[in-house]
């Protein structure tokens, strides 16, 4: 189970990503616990495997519209499917990597695996996951933390 301070680490990582990369703040909704092993997903999901002191996954999932605007805010003109997938993986990687500031270097993160257009393929390894809703401009995304 995650402690409140650990959830805060991921919330801070998510808000910092938008503040720095998009130069525009995102608001984070109240995190909630999902217990049926199905935290849900949007169009594109970047999944990071966690090993070492903690085991599980962290994923960032967002609709195409949000990722397209985020790319444009980053001055990227190529909004192809390939770059959208690259971005969703990079967001997941950045938020997970930043968490090592609090979790320490034994919070080992994998390279991202990206799932696009097939939301049913996004599954959590354990029944319980914390879902952190992220709202940016008119779009909603979610950060899912599922650790043993």
């Amino acid at each position: 189970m995650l402690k409140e301070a650990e959830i805060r680490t991921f919330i801070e990582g998510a808000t910092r990503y938008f503040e720095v990369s998009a130069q525009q703040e995102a608001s984070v909704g109240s995190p909630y616990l999902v217990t049926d092993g199905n935290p849900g997903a949007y169009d594109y999901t970047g999944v990071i495997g966690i090993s070492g002191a903690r085991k599980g996954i962290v994923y960032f999932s967002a609709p195409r519209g949000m990722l397209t605007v985020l790319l444009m805010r980053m001055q990227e003109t190529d909004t192809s499917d390939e770059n959208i997938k690259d971005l969703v993986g990079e967001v997941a990687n950045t938020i997970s990597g930043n968490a090592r500031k609090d979790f320490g270097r034994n919070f080992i993160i994998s390279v991202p695996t990206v799932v696009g257009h097939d939301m049913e393929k996004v599954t959590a390894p354990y029944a319980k996951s914390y879902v952190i809703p992220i709202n940016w401009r008119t779009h909603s995304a979610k950060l899912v933390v599922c650790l043993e």
Partner: protein
Amino acid sequence: MSAPSRSQTPLKLMIVDDSNIIRRRIERSQQIDRLEVVGSASNGRQAVELFRRTQPDVVTMDLTMPEMDGIECVQELVAINSKVLILVVSALADKATAVEAIEKGANGFLCKPFTDRQLNDALHELLLGV
């Protein structure tokens, strides 16, 4: 005509990151006149090959990459040319990782996400005295 001072000498830059967006972002955002991008690689193994071929003076290096990670790649590049200047650009925000990268031969560390200004400040600092 006097010879150009050392501080005006053009320097070759290689960008290493598994994200195409980040590679393009660094290339687009770096505003140091002396730096000319000579190539980019998406993993450590590719980077070593490109490094041998293009002999860059400066490298930006991601850490979490497939094939060969950034720490191993830093070691390989420094073994080939101990004078290369390496700026690690990574999301791994713990101090121990930054210290390890420096110990293996990197010269600076920039944490993702970063602004254009932070990137250019980090590159400027890397090039001080070169």
